[in-house]
């Protein structure tokens, strides 16, 4: 699943959006990997992520931390979302120092991730590039909506729910952060960034949403 790829946005829009993922390789270092995975999550949570979760149990915005921790098994894919590269650097450094031995993937702006990795004493091993969306793109929602939709790679945050959230903000029924956190609850994996979403929702409600890069 390429669920942390294809997050649409300009570099300015993506400056506070970093997803860190950890998992073991099935049939390689899988057996017993729930132990380092749980340790990874402990470290990740100490660094105050804006979201975190396990792919089947749910995220910390809808489940207790104890529930998320208990849901981590050998087959788990776990995630934490940060708004600053410094926290990512600290996480990478500590995971490296403790030699947890699980695979770690950072999704974010390539130039920032590269420099962050350098600060942590690690380097890029394999990269995955998004080459855009092709085909019937005329049927897609506008880019303002897509910037938020694509923060849940499984598409659990729908375009219609985003449009409703914007209306709720405009009519004073919700703050941007409350609306963003409600949307984040739909993203089971916990990779949706509610802080970035709140900013994007506010811009949409104010009518000041900047244009995203074209697909």
């Amino acid at each position, binding site marked *: *699943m*390429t*669920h*942390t790829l*294809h*997050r649409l946005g300009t*570099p300015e829009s*993506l400056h506070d959006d970093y997803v860190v*993922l950890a*998992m*073991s*390789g*099935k049939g*390689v*270092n899988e057996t017993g990997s729930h132990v380092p995975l749980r340790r990874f999550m402990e470290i990740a949570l100490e660094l105050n992520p804006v979201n975190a979760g396990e*792919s*089947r149990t749910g995220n910390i915005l809808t489940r207790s931390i104890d529930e998320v921790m208990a849901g981590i098994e050998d*087959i788990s*894919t776990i995630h934490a979302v940060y708004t600053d590269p410094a926290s990512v650097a600290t996480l990478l450094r500590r*995971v490296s120092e403790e*030699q947890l*031995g*699980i*695979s*770690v993937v*950072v999704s*974010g*702006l*390539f*130039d920032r991730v*590269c420099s962050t*990795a350098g600060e942590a004493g*690690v*380097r*890029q*091993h*394999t*990269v*995955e*590039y*998004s*080459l*855009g*969306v*092709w*085909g*019937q793109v005329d*049927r*897609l*929602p506008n880019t303002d909506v897509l910037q938020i*939709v*694509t923060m849940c790679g*499984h*598409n*659990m945050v*729908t375009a*219609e729910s985003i449009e*409703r959230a914007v209306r709720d903000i405009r009519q004073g029924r919700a703050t941007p952060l409350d609306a963003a956190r409600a949307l984040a609850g739909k993203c*089971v994996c916990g990779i949706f960034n509610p802080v970035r979403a709140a900013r994007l929702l506010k811009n949409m409600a104010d009518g000041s949403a900047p244009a995203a*890069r074209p697909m």
Partner: protein
Amino acid sequence: MYIRTEICNNCASCIPTCPVGAIYVDRARKHVTIDQELCVECGACYRAGVCKTKALTQPQLTWPRSVRAALSDPVTVNADTRIAGRGTEEMKTNDVTGRFLRGYVGIALELGRPCLGASFADVQVMSRVCAQHGAEFCANNPVTKLLTDTTTGDVNSEVLNERVLSAIVEVTVPLERVPELLTAVIEAASTLKTVCSIDAVSLVEPDGSIPLRAVLAKLGLHPAPNGKNNMGLGRPAFDFFGGDAL
């Protein structure tokens, strides 16, 4: 998913939870209902917890409809690959699996993403293109397991009419064949009834260079400024540079 109309109060709260717009008000029946053809069995409406009367009902799915949930429901673990979601580890564990070797590029074609969903007829358009251009299908991928012939890219005819939120055709090709394949894939994308998110995976050379970048630039393809970075922390580390990978 279906709605038990005898207990549904027609509040319509479930409508905005559907990623593919399958829930609608049936004016003739005067009831909220689910278009069974469009529903991809992702479970988003059910998990949203918006139904106060518990009218949303998830039946036990049988083949071939079960393939919808297998690829669309993020909490479903694929039986073959033991990965939740769309069921592939792709580059996330490349540091220990050696899935994408030096000199090779992984190409992933994600049909239906974002927002529109896809049928396996759409998937077959792309799997056939990949086969025609000699790409090797990744073994540990749920879509590959639905192909009846990897030399033609033919999808099991039993699932051709099934719809999913998205499905990933995942292949590897030698670096020098990337232009041929991507050109063909992009041309084929214009014939799809849905969208296709395309991505490319490459190992980073020991000196930090990524030969794929120059190939993409020559094609006029400009990767997004953001993407995924496997940080090489998995152990035991796969030996990419020992000679066998070349």
